[in-house]
C-alpha cells in the first residue's frame, strides 16, 4: 500500500488529503493526529523549545505506533533533546512505558527490551528505539548497526535535526554541507560544514537488508503515519529517519518549523522513500518544486551564503546539484514517467 492510496479512494478529496483531518474524509481515513483519543505519547508540559520539530515528530510517530500496536508499545530513548525535555525530574511527559539509558546505546537497549518480551511470550508488545541524529548516525551507530544485523524486532526512529542541538548546535555526521554550527563556523575560505553526503544512515540501513527502511518528514504527517503504521506491521529490524526542524539550531522562526521541513522535501534536499530488504519500493513526489535557495535562505545557519546581499552562487549550485541528484535518483518529479 502506498500513501496516496487513500486519496484515490476518496471521491471528493479536495480538502483533507494533506491536512491532518477533515470532516469530509471517512473516519477510518483520518490521521491518528486528528483523533481526540490519540495517545499523546508526549503530553503537554514538556520543556521543548517553542516550535520544536522533534517534539512534534516524536508524538506523531509514537501516537501512530500506539494505534498500530493497540497500545502495546515500549519506547527506548537515546540521550538528547527529546530525552532531556521530556523527563526532567520530577516530571515526565511520557505517557507510555519509556526508558533512557545512554547516548549511544538506544538500539541495543531496545534489542534487550524486545528480547525480554519475546522470552516472556509477550511479543505483542512492540519496541521503538529513538534518538537524534547524533545518537543515531554518530555515537549510537555501532549499536544501531548491530541491531540491524541481528534483525532484532525493533523500529528505530531517528529524529534528524542535522546537528547536536542539545549541546548547543555542534556538527554531526548528518549536518548538511555548508551549514554553520558551533563547530563548523561560518569562517574562512570554506565557511560552514564540509561538502559531502554525510553519513546516510537510511542507505546504510538498507545495506543491512533489513525488512523496512523509510524516510519521513515532520512536514508530511500523512506519509509519516503511514510509514510508522507500515513499519509496525513488520517483524524484525526497521528504520525510520524523520526530518525534524530545530528553530534554534537552524535559526528559523518557531512558527516555520513545518514550513522549513516542507521546503526541504519540496526542493529535493530531503527525499522521501521506502525500501524493503534493501530495495527502494516507493518514493515520494515533490508537489511544488522549489529551488534549494528557497530552503536555504530563511535559515540563519546558511546566512553566510547570502551575506551582505551577495549570494554565494557557487555553493548554492553545489547544493542544488545534490538536490537534483536526489530528484533523479528517487524520481521525485516523476517526469521521466518511471515510478521507482
Amino acid at each position, binding site marked *: 500500500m502506498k500513501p496516496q492510496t487513500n486519496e484515490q479512494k476518496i471521491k471528493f478529496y479536495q480538502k483533507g488529503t494533506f491536512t491532518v*483531518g477533515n470532516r*469530509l474524509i471517512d473516519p477510518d481515513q483520518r490521521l491518528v493526529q486528528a483523533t481526540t483519543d490519540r495517545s499523546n505519547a508526549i*503530553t503537554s508540559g514538556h520543556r521543548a523549545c517553542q516550535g520544536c520539530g522533534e*517534539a512534534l515528530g516524536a508524538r506523531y510517530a509514537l501516537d501512530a505506533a500506539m494505534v498500530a500496536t493497540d497500545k502495546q508499545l515500549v519506547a527506548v530513548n537515546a540521550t538528547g533533546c527529546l530525552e532531556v525535555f521530556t523527563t526532567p525530574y520530577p516530571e515526565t511527559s511520557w505517557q507510555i512505558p519509556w526508558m533512557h539509558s545512554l547516548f549511544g546505546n538506544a538500539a541495543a537497549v531496545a534489542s534487550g527490551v524486545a528480547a525480554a518480551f519475546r522470552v516472556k511470550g509477550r511479543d505483542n508488545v512492540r519496541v521503538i528505539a529513538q534518538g537524534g541524529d547524533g545518537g543515531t548516525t554518530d555515537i549510537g551507530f555501532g549499536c544501531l548497526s548491530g541491531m540491524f544485523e541481528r534483525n532484532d524486532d525493533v523500529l528505530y526512529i531517528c529524529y534528524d535535526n542535522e546537528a547536536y542541538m542539545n549541546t548547543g548546535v555542534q556538527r554531526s555526521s548528518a549536518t548538511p554541507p555548508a551549514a554553520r554550527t558551533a563547530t563548523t563556523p561560518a569562517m574562512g575560505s570554506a565557511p560552514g560544514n564540509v561538502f559531502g553526503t554525510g553519513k546516510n544512515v537510511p542507505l546504510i540501513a538498507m545495506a543491512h537488508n533489513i525488512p523496512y527502511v523509510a524516510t519521513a518528514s515532520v512536514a508530511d504527517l500523512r506519509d509519516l503515519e503511514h510509514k510508522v503504521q507500515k513499519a509496525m506491521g513488520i517483524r524484525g529490524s526497521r528504520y525510520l529517519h524523520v526530518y525534524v526542524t530545530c528553530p534554534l539550531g537552524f535559526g528559523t522562526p*518557531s512558527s516555520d518549523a513545518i514550513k522549513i521541513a516542507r521546503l526541504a522535501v519540496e526542493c529535493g534536499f530531503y527525499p522521501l522513500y521506502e525500501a524493503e530488504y534493501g530495495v527502494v519500493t516507493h518514493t515520494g513526489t515533490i508537489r511544488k518544486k522549489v529551488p534549494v535557495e528557497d530552503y536555504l535562505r530563511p535559515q540563519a545557519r546558511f546566512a553566510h551564503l547570502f551575506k551582505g546581499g551577495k549570494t554565494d552562487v557557487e555553493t548554492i549550485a553545489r547544493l542544488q546539484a545534490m538536490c537534483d541528484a536526489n530528484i533523479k535518483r528517487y524520481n521525485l518529479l516523476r517526469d521521466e514517467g518511471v515510478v521507482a
Partner: protein
Amino acid sequence: MTHQPHPFAITLDVGTSLANHTGSWRTNRPVYVDRIPPCNNQCPAGEDIQSWLFHAESGDYRHSWDEIMKNNPMPAVMGRACYHSCEDVCNRARLDSSVSIHAVERFLGDLAIKEGWKAPPGAPATGKKVLVVGAGPSGLACAYHLARIGHAVTIVEAGPLAGGMMRFGIPKYRLPRDILDAEVKRILDLGVTLKLNTKVEDIPGLMKSGGYDACFAAIGAHLAKRVNIPSPDAGRILDAVSLLRDMETGAEPPKLGRRVIIYGGGNTAMDAARTAKRLGAEETVIVYRRTRAQMPAHSFEVDEAVEEGIMIHWLRTIKQMDEHSFVVEKMALNKDGWPEPTGEFETIEGDTLILALGQDVDLGILDKIPGVKVTKEKTVEVDRNMMTGFPGLFAGGDMVPAERTITVAVGHGKKAARHIDAFLNGTTYVKPAKHDVATFDKLNTWYYTDADGSQQPHLDMLRRRTTFDEVVGGLDETNALYEARRCLSCGNCFECDNCFGVCPDNSVIKLGPGKRFEFNLDFCKGCGICVTECPCGAIKLVPEDI
C-alpha cells in the same frame, strides 16, 4: 505483578509534566479568526459564498441553499446570469482555476426548484406597507427581503411580466423562462402583491393614496442610446433593447433580413447578435470601435458568440448606411489606447443595423419629485442608505449610479430593504464591520490537493445556432459536489484538524464537529506553527501583554 514504589527520582509516574504550565513562556498568543473570503468580499449581492459552499461540500444542499437565500432570493437565475466576479478574485485561481461558484449555485437553485423548496418563513407582520416600483431583479430582491422582515409589499410593474432585464434583457438561451418564473413565484408566494401593466406616474401620490410607509424605486434603464447614422431607410435601424423585449412580448419574432450588423461591444451587443443568429440571419457581424481587450462584454460571452459564428470587426465605426451595405471607418489606437479615426474607409454588406450602445434611465416619473436629484449621467442620486432626496423614497438597480448587472441590482434590493426597514423603525441600519480579507498570502495552499476545475456542458452547435435552448448546461451532483469541495474556505475554519495536529505542545483542544477548536493557554508556548500551517488563514498571532 506486585506494585512496588519506583526508585527515587530515576523512575517517574507517567504524564506528570502536566504540572508544568508552559503557557508562561508565551510572548505571542494564537487567536482563531474568521477572515472574509475574497469571493464574499467581492459579491455585489453580499452572498456568503464560502459559507454556503461549506454546507454544499458535505452534501447538505438544503442548508446550503438556505444560506444563499439569506442574501439572494434567486439562486437558479443568478447561477446562470450573474457574471460571477467572485470567481475573478477566487484564491483558487492562483493554484489551478477558480471554483466554479456560479455552477454550484445554479445546481442548488435548480435543485430547489425541482424539490419545491420554499423560501424560509419570514417574521410576523409588522403592519408597515412598502411600495416597490419595478419588478426587475432589484425590486424583486427588495420585496423578498422586506416581506421576510414582515412588511407588506406591493410591486407595481409597467410591463406585462415580472423580471425586468432578467426577462427583457437576457435571452432565453442564457436564462430559461421557467427558471425565472419559478424563482419569481417563490418570492410572490411570500405574500408579495404584484401589479403588472401598471405604470406609476406619481410616486408620492401613490404612496399617500395607497398608505405606503416607504417606496423602493427600481425602474431600471431601458431607453436605448441612439446614434445618428445617415440612412436611406430608418426602419432598418433597430435597437438591441427593443429587439430583446420583442422576443418576449412580440406576437412574432422581428424580421431582420439576411445580414445583420450589430453596433456596440457590450454584453447586450452579444445577446442581440446571438439572438439575430438564432432568428435566421445568415451573417451576423458586430462592429466595435475599439479592440477585443477593450470590449465591455464578458470574455465568455464573446467566446460563445464567436463559437456560434458571429463575426466581429474591431476598430471600426459606422459612418453611413446604404441599401445593402455600410460604410465603416477604420480606427487606430493612439498612445493612450483610445481609438482615433484613420480616414480609411471600407464597405461591409448588411441589411439591418441593431444598435447596442447602452441604455438610459427613463427619468420622467422621478425628476418632478421634490428633493430627488439627478446626476449628470442621468441616474438618480441616492445617499449611503439608498434613499433619494425625497424622504421614504429609496432607489436602486440600474437607475442609480452603479455597475449595471443583475447581481448589483439584487444587492441593491437587499441593501435597500435593510435601510427601508431601519427607516420604518425610525433608526439607521449600521453595517457590521468587515473582517480582514483572506488574501492569498494568508493561506497555506500546500495542504490543498490539486484539482482542476470542472466544465459545464454546452449545447451542440447546430441547436445553439437555430434554437433558443439553454446553451450552458448545469453540473450533475457529482460534479457540483466536486466543485464545491474545491473551495479553499479562505479565512474560515473548515475543521481540517491541522492546528490540532501540528501543535508540539498538544495545546489545541478539539471541540467536536461544527464546534471548531480552542487553545489551551496553560500549555501553548505561542510558537505559531498553527498559524503558519492553517491552510485557510483562520488563525492569527497577537502579542501577549507582558
